[in-house]
């Protein structure tokens, strides 16, 4: 931190304390606030966000569909390569960029005649395939974490983002998602994604596919 930043820091904190009419908080008060943060209490969780089981799955499907995500149901993971072939235009040689997770990389891509690549996404990529840690029922939102096997660019750069979601990973509300995130070391990025990219900046007319993926396809098993 530069000297001026140090000085500004001092100035800003002093002015705040002056406005509040007190010195820095006592050690006891700080301890109290710290523990409130390390064991965070939930605020009011709307009833809708408390859904479980099949009700949560149904709500997830309804809300994700409303946000213009597409949902395809699969009987088994093995059906996935066959499903993806329909997305690749005739003669398009661009590889399918997949997250380096064995459940995805072990699939029989060769039989489906799909060339795959395990890397970060690049400009020009057509389709990416990732998994996610959860689907949040209350708004049809997918939760994805960054990590060595799940580069964030896969969620953003390609024209079509395909996401594998297991029904048992559908949860009620955002709070349940943070509980899952807290189970491991906090990653650089947590993405909450609800439908494909959109913009209404021209005359307030909604257009899909602004800068992120134009299509978000959720494969549910």
């Amino acid at each position, binding site marked *: 931190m*530069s000297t001026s930043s140090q000085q500004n*820091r001092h100035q800003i904190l002093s002015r705040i304390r002056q406005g509040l009419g007190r010195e820095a908080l006592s050690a006891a008060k700080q301890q109290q606030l710290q523990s409130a943060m390390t064991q965070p209490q939930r605020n009011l969780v709307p009833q809708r966000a408390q859904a479980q089981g099949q009700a949560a799955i149904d709500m997830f499907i309804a809300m994700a569909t409303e946000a213009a995500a597409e949902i395809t149901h699969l009987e088994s993971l093995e059906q996935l390569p066959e499903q993806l072939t329909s997305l690749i235009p005739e003669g398009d040689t661009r590889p399918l960029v997949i997250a380096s997770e064995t459940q995805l990389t072990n699939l029989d891509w060769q039989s489906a005649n799909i060339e795959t690549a395990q890397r*970060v996404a690049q400009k020009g990529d057509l389709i990416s395939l990732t998994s996610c840690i959860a689907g949040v029922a209350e708004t049809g939102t997918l939760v994805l974490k*960054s990590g060595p096997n799940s580069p964030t660019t896969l969620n953003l750069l390609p024209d079509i983002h395909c996401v594998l979601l297991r029904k048992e990973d559908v949860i009620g509300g955002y709070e349940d998602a943070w509980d899952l995130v807290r189970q491991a070391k906090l990653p650089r990025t947590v993405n909450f994604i609800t439908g494909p990219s959109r913009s209404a900046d021209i005359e307030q007319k909604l257009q899909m596919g602004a800068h*992120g993926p134009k299509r978000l396809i959720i494969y549910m098993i």
Partner: protein
Amino acid sequence: MQINSPKFKDNARIALADANLQQALGNLKAGFPGKRAAAIGRLPEFDALRDQAQDIKNHVIENLDFYLETFESKVQDNGGHVHWASSSEDACQTILDICQSVGARTVTKGKSMVTEEIGLNDFLEKHSVTPVETDLGEYILQLREDHPSHIIAPAIHLNLSDVSEIFAEKHGTEAKHQPEELMQEARDVLRDHFVAADVGITGANFYVPETGSTIIVTNEGNGDLTQTLPKVHIVVTSIEKCVPTLEDLSLFMRLLSRSATGQECTVYNTLSSGPRQPGDQDGPEQFHVVLVDNGRSSMVGDDLQDMLRCIRCSACMNHCPVYSQIGGHAYGWVYPGPMGSVLTPKMIGIHDAGHLPNASTFCGKCESVCPVRIPLPKLMRSWRETQHQQQASPAIGRMAIGGWAWLARHPRLYKLGSSIAIKAMSIMAGNKGRLKSLPVGRGWTLWRDLPAPQGSSFQQQWKQQQNKGDKS
């Protein structure tokens, strides 16, 4: 940004006569308020969530020093850097220093009102760093050398033809006339910038001390590309944008998108915590947070403290009868509408921004839709008082108020004067009971008739009411 607030009255007059602008503002009126109402109708707990949000934000302000320090140390634990900026100049210089330290020539930018507030783009350009706005609306404005007129729908004052013309001119392409074609063109052009940029700058809708994270809430995905692809990610945010924990963030996520665009959830809600981690294949190598004060710390403990709860959702301006008639540019600085009328005088001074807190009918709609229940009319009234005390308001208005105050303290004279005025107005109004013109009320009668007073006066009715009360 140049300050045009002193010319508010002229700006408003021009805006009302601008057919193109009026057409564009029609899109606002037809859009946001209805969508918000529909979304809230589907969440019965909405008002209870607002109460909690208000409490959380008040708690944050009461302990803001603690949360800022905690946030700073968490960011550092995550491998990031925190910079403190008292003023716009401090903030701009800090950002430039970071850009220069990595030899940056171009930077991409996600949408950020704080960077508008500190005038970042002009500053970077002056120092040979080229900023590229990547939000579609902001990009259109940058090409036009224009400024946002709304805090979440920056180009709401423009029509399709405006976008069509500027794209054809600046991109050297054939003019396109469909919104989706124009968006595709911007997508193609900006892709190269995303990949080539050395530094990505975003704002933050919130920061979370619990985890040392910043959050952006967007629909296009440009903010995410901006912060993921370059080597360096700089977050520019202001000191009050704190929600202590991820649990609190959940609550604010539910409030923000519904209050802003009426969406159930915005497309991308992204939590960023530090630079890329060991093994990560993408993400920035450096993560910087610039905490901007710019007068906010001096709002703690003063009349404007409630304004520090603001989450910049834009519901107040979307529902404001004044904003929806004149648009955002008439306000003459970065923040328009009711929230701007409270904030702008603080940031540029009441002498320059004096018209803004007066540009309100006090209908109360802004306060009624505010997700954190900021008493915006009360805060605007507080500015009017300050203005009166500092004699910054027009002399004639102060004289009139002074005269009325004197009269109100002399009830007999008041009664006599008002009974004469009532009689005179009734005579002038004639059979129709309406005044077509009034010597001191031209501002009213130019546009509509003034109904003449009818029946008994308030004081008479009050007396009757009291008498009735005594008998019962």
